[in-house]
């Protein structure tokens, strides 16, 4: 085992897959010498050259179209959209073209591509550099949506995504790049479509992903001391969702909280809540609780941003509320 950051783990995944398979290449804005904003691909151009680490024009729809086209003729492109906030520019290519391409061919063509991007707040980057937009992509049958929360998963999921024959939207979190974790020396994969119980518990099932998962684990530690036991489930892949792991957990704990950094209305929490309310409502001993960002753009002001985005305290308050111990503020 070795200790790597989330960033390094992702870079290792890219490097290993590029070494393993000549058809894998990277394209995106400023990914070569500059290493992009969050430095995930940093240095790869030295190893693989500009042919396979391609700086593109500033044109997100062009990038994603090029990615799709190359995938159709035998390449395995890994595109980068620098911030998920910019992905709406490429929405038609992602949604109408990529997600539907295989279906349009009557299921005869494979679309092996990955769109790496990152979202989330916490660095006062303002309205257009802080959003969490995964929910939009979960409403697009044909896509897969993957959101790693720890370095181990980041590497294993990215490697699996690159080998996957369906298009994957791979969403990282800017607030996690510096987090460290243990990674095996030997090669490994983390399967897509499989949730993981990151912390067992008996009182409340907390479904959380990306940075919210980390917060949920911290909250679980704090709450343990006051006798509230959280079972924290990391879906890892949002689409298709591993419903069984979530339902099994809820059947055990009888309570559900969903945590995410995206705003509440129209967020993925609604989907998880609905699945449980459809399939396991009889097991519930409390209302379902969504701990999410408030319905607002992300403000620049750090205090406001902190307030809008859910933190460990909000999870703790929500858990206490579910246990009937207090009424939480949100």
């Amino acid at each position: 085992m070795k200790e790597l950051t989330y960033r390094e783990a992702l870079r290792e995944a890219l490097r290993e897959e590029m070494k393993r398979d000549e058809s894998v290449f990277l394209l995106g804005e400023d990914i070569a010498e500059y290493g992009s904003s969050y430095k995930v691909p940093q240095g790869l151009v030295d190893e693989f050259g500009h042919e396979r680490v391609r700086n593109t024009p500033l044109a997100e729809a062009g990038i994603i179209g090029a990615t799709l086209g190359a995938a159709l003729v035998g390449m395995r492109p890994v595109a980068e959209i620098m911030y998920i906030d910019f992905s709406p520019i490429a929405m038609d290519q992602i949604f109408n073209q990529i997600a539907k391409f295989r279906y349009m061919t009557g299921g005869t063509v494979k679309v092996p591509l990955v769109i790496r991007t990152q979202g989330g707040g916490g660095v006062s980057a303002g309205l257009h550099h802080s959003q969490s937009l995964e929910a939009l992509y979960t409403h697009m049958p044909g896509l897969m949506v993957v959101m790693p929360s720890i370095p181990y998963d980041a590497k294993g999921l990215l490697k699996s995504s690159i080998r996957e024959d369906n298009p994957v939207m791979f969403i990282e979190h800017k607030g996690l790049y510096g987090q460290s974790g243990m990674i095996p020396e030997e090669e490994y994969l983390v399967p897509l479509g499989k949730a993981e119980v990151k912390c067992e518990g008996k009182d409340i099932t907390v479904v959380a992903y990306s940075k919210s998962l980390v917060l949920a684990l911290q909250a679980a530690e704090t709450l343990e001391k006051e006798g509230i036991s959280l079972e924290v489930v990391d879906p890892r892949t949002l689409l298709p969702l591993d419903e069984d792991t979530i339902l099994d957990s809820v059947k055990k704990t009888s309570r559900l909280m969903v945590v995410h950094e995206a705003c509440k209305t129209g967020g993925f929490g609604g989907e998880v809540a609905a699945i449980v309310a459809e399939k396991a409502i009889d097991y519930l001993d409390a209302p379902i609780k969504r701990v999410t960002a408030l319905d607002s753009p992300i403000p620049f002001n750090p205090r406001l941003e902190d307030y809008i985005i859910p933190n460990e305290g909000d999870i703790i308050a929500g858990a206490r509320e579910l246990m009937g111990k207090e009424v939480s503020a949100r």
Partner: protein
Amino acid sequence: MSKIGKEKLKEIYIIMLRIRAFEERAIVEYHKGIPGFIHSSIGEEAIPAAVGAFLRGDDYLLTTHRGHGDIIAKGARFDKMMAELFAKETGYCKGRGGSMHIVATDRNMLGATAIVGAGLPIASGVALGCKMQKLDRVTVCFFGDGATCTGAFHEALCFASVWDLPVVFVCANNLYSLSTPQKVYTKLEHISDRAKAYGIPGVTVDGNDVAAVAEVASEAIERARKGGGPTFIEGMTYRIYGHHMGDPGTSYRTKEEVEDWKKKDPIARLQSRLLKAKVITKSDIEEIQADVNRELDEAVKFAAESPEPKIEDALSGIYYTAR
């Protein structure tokens, strides 16, 4: 006759006949009740036929909602196309796509998209994939004049030009973006001037003159194949019918304009040249037409008799699953 040899012109002529015949039959079947939209390309056949004649089987092609002609020019089969129009399991997309979405992978025809402009960035990507794999395949992307206003057009050409990709962008300028005449949506007289924004060759030709299209197309395809990068070709043409079969096409065009253009029919024009030059005889033509019609009869029969997709398969083909 022209730089394009007689045999090539004859070949192109036959492709045009095939396109015309297919389109006419599709309209007949539309009126009999096949589902969905039909966007006829009748009147515009010279462009795909003259381009397609210079493509290899392994070259790639992408097109748009008005794509029947382009798809046929790439050699797609009538039976599977017709079955797709009939929404049958035996169609090119197993009935999931329909007229606006035909994909003929057996002919490296990588699909028609009904989102105007959206095919162009994909075409650049296909060409990128070919170039990176050192395949000397050319990608051709067809679209209409209206599509040149889309951001997708711009981004696609930015990529194709800067990476010298082996792709040819072919615009069938039928003077209208649906109902909107060219002068209402752009100040340009020649849309091929848009090529100047990318530093690539752009050329406008009479899109109803087969030889003219063939000349620029063969040159552009050759250039692309040899690593010389993309070309933008604008062929001036006209669609004789409305935007789709539900549009009479009369609210924004005059009868005179349509009649004028009927006189410039590209098939009649080439046919009289070929007859005059004795490259072909009347009986040759009758024979070809009879063959094409027979093929179409069979295609319609095949389509009509083919099974519909099964409801049990409704959710298949969305994701690839290794079994």
